């Protein structure tokens, strides 16, 4: 069957699942006085439409920063402004200053959900389709299967269409960035990634790999000639895009500082709530949050983060390759998530431990259904339980190296298979327990902490796994076929 028919079918399935999830409730539905993220987005439309730019990030009588103040970079604000113009055309009551607080109606819900869908359709979905089509050295069937699994990823669907956020915009831009940089359209790729950062500062997680990869490319071309030219062009592109986005805020130093203060709240402390972060898990054993002073916490997290991602990044500078780039993206993001300061649970967009959040929003059914669908799609497309030879796991070179010291280390793939099964079973059990049982009185957060702890172990494992792949890949890089 022609590729385009199948790809259209896959996209339509993705859209159908997204819209059916959006029929459900959103965060903070019917819960005054603060409501939830849905109300936050509506409030930002109100603020950006009614107030001049200079007042968007400042506390004033019209703009109470305690009630969902803007804490994303300017591009989010511009997007809200655009939506506000459309809202004004349909029903001005939705964004009237002060009086529209807590506005809830079916028509408004339809409007908000539509904005998410349109943003998704324009930015994220084309990026996914193009990305899958540009994957080299795999069959058409595998490309379609990839697209299906990515589009069915429950985390993004549930957060964007259930809880209510616009993550697909920033992720989409980042994906365009990855695509551009992998296909050697470096300027466009870096432009796209700058847009992503300017939409949500969370994308800074991915910034280091981008920087290292592009730097590596410049080095490879030779710093005395083409490489230098490329470096200059890239620097100009980045600076220009930042200036373009931040233009209204560069007029005064105070403006820029205030925005930065809103984006990076270093006053808040090492972590908040229950996050599958190293610090949160460590806190279970030793209460570091209370013991150490604030600036020591900052330094500690900074050091750990950079130490954990340093090897991969250096490797990327010295030997830039598309494959290494993609793996480094994942491992850097994991490092940042695990070790950095003030991490929010949504930064990682993983379903399993967002369960308490989703339960609060009454999204249990869609979350179960979408997770199962994703699982089935992945398992059917990739036959996880059959093909787990060492070659498939990309660990061949690693295990060969280990075998020079330990000749009996032949059961690596089996270990990984068992670990995978154990982790899946544990997560399912924990999910069931969270949903059905009540935690004991003395430990009210027992289940969420357990989930976070187990997730943290999973992430640590993946961090190690990806780093191994990256580091051991180079030795056979020239001998094997080029796999991007």
């Amino acid at each position, binding site marked *: *069957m*022609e590729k385009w*028919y*199948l790809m*259209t*079918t896959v996209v*339509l*399935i993705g*859209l*159908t*699942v997204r*819209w*059916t*999830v959006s*029929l*459900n409730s959103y965060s903070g539905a019917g819960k005054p006085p603060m409501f939830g993220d849905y109300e936050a987005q509506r409030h930002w439309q109100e603020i950006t439409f009614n107030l001049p730019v200079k007042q968007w990030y400042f506390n004033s009588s019209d703009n109470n920063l305690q009630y969902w103040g803007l804490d994303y970079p300017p591009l989010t604000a511009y997007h809200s402004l655009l939506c506000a113009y459309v809202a004004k055309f349909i029903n001005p009551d939705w964004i009237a200053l002060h009086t529209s607080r807590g506005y809830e109606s*079916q*028509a408004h819900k*339809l409007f908000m959900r539509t904005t998410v*869908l349109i943003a998704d359709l324009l930015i994220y979905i084309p990026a996914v389709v193009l990305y899958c089509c540009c994957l080299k050295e795999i069959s058409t*069937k595998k490309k379609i299967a990839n697209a299906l699994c990515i589009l069915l990823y429950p985390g993004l669907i549930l957060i964007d269409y259930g809880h209510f956020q616009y993550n697909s915009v920033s992720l989409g831009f980042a994906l365009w960035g990855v695509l551009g940089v992998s296909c050697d359209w470096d300027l466009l790729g870096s432009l796209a990634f700058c847009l992503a950062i300017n939409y949500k500062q969370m994308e800074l997680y991915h910034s280091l790999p981008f920087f290292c990869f592009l730097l590596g490319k410049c080095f490879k071309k030779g710093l005395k000639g083409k490489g230098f030219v490329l470096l200059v062009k890239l620097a100009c592109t980045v600076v220009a895009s930042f200036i373009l986005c931040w233009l209204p805020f560069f007029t005064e130093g105070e403006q820029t500082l205030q925005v930065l203060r809103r984006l990076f709240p270093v006053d808040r402390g090492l972590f908040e709530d229950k996050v599958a972060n190293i610090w949160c898990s460590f806190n279970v054993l030793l209460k570091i949050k209370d013991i150490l002073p604030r600036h020591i916490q900052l330094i500690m997290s900074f050091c750990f983060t950079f130490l954990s991602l340093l090897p991969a990044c250096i490797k990327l500078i010295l030997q830039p390759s598309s494959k290494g780039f993609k793996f480094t993206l994942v491992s850097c993001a994991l490092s940042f998530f695990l070790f950095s300061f003030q991490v929010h649970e949504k930064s990682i967009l993983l379903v399993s431990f967002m369960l308490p959040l989703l339960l609060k929003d009454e999204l249990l*059914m*869609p979350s179960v*259904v*979408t997770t*199962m*669908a994703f*699982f*089935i*799609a992945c*398992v*059917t497309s990739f*036959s*996880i*339980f*059959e093909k787990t030879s060492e070659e498939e796991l990309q660990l061949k070179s690693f295990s060969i190296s280990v075998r020079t010291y330990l000749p009996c280390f032949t059961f690596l793939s089996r270990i990984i298979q068992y670990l995978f099964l154990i982790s899946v079973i544990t997560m*399912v059990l924990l999910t069931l327990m969270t949903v059905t049982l009540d935690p004991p009185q003395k430990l009210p957060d027992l289940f969420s902490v357990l989930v976070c702890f187990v997730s943290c172990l999973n992430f640590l494992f993946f961090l190690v796994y990806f780093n191994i792949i990256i580091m051991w890949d180079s030795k056979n890089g020239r001998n094997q076929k080029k796999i991007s």
Partner: protein
Amino acid sequence: MAALTIAAGTGNWFSALALGVTLLKCLLIPTYHSTDFEVHRNWLAITHSLPISQWYYEATSEWTLDYPPFFAWFEYILSHVAKYFDQEMLNVHNLNYSSSRTLLFQRFSVIFTDTLFVYAVHECCKCIGGKKVGKELTEKPKFILSVLLLWNFGLLIVDHIHFQYNGFLFGLMLLSIARLFQKRHMEGAFLFAVLLHFKHIYLYVAPAYGVYLLRSYCFTANRPDGSIRWNSFSFVRFISLGLVVFLISALSLGPFLALNQLPQVFSRLFPFKRGLCHAYWAPNFWALYNALDKVLSVIGLKLKFLDPNKIPKASMKVQFQHTVLPSVTPWQRLYAQLIAILPSIFCLWFKPQGPRGFLRCLILCALSSFMFGWHVHEKAILLAILPMSEHFELPIKILLMLLFTIYSISSLKTLFRKEKPLFNWMETFYLLGLGPLEVCCEFVFPLTSWKLKYPFIPLLLTSVYCALGITYAWFKLYVSVLIDPPIGKTKKQ
């Protein structure tokens, strides 16, 4: 969970498809539901709370029990599960009761009963031979049939959004067809008899079953040229078929015969008097007939042939009386239906082509009955006011329809016509025209000034346009059945 893993892990595509569509059905749970939801809740209440003698007499709600007894027993069994979800829904006086638990139970009951449908599709796939082994999965006829049936967009929308139980009824019919293909005629007959007593609307295709079983099962052999051999009539087979039908009918109608309630039951099942004023613009022959009548009356008015006082005002209701063309009574419509199915029946008798011929005749019977049937739908009036909730579901309907259409066209093209296009230019034009038509009806029309004066125009336009297409398809199918030469016995089915 283990079974799921094993099934999915071995790459069993059928299970993946079935599981996938079941998950999609779960996602459709919070969509809006039509009055049919209340209908079935009422039937749960009636069968649970009242004795059998009251079932066909109960009339507290306007949605009285008008399906045959097996369906009533089905609702009775369901009601015993329902009482663990929400006792209140089983109270006959709780009209329009729809708590979240009721909704959950009802939706899950449809999803659960669809298991029979999934099984039936599985059986149907077994009947299709896979001649070329090396083909890619997505090009195998079994795969395409499974997708077209399991992910059927019409069934998804009617059963899981509007709310009905067509899935498992359709499954029963598919299963009986599959059994006939597998030469297990007695089982096929048994299943169809059971189906008839679940929903009597399947009487429309009963002639196809009757003639096929008589011709190809009771007469055990044909002459070399394919015509009937009278002396091969098997009395045993004929009697056993009759016995099966009789026993099932006895099981179903027996209790009501004992209670002397048969006339009441039949009056509920075949309400000739009810609903003759309101009718829906079903896209069949009568839509074209009515449209033609309207057009002629408008022309007649302009040319002063007709008296303006005699013409009834245009409204949502389709009237009995026609102005220019002769009016048609319900009995005349019934005769029209019978006449329409006769040629296909004759074909089945005189040129038997095995199970394939039976299938074609069945489709023709169903389609012809639809073409000339008089369709009564209470929902017609409700559609005049589009509730806000329907706007939310509109993208889902469009997406599912697009999904289904794109897939069908591409897969059927792969199966049947690799070189030529699937449709000729006229057909392509017609199908593409559906897009602008829907845009006009859903988006443009509500913004025009005609919305208040002539609210039925979108329905009328959609009906007539679809009727044209359906009539064309019906005609083409009929011609192909009548013209095709009979297949000899030696050829493999």
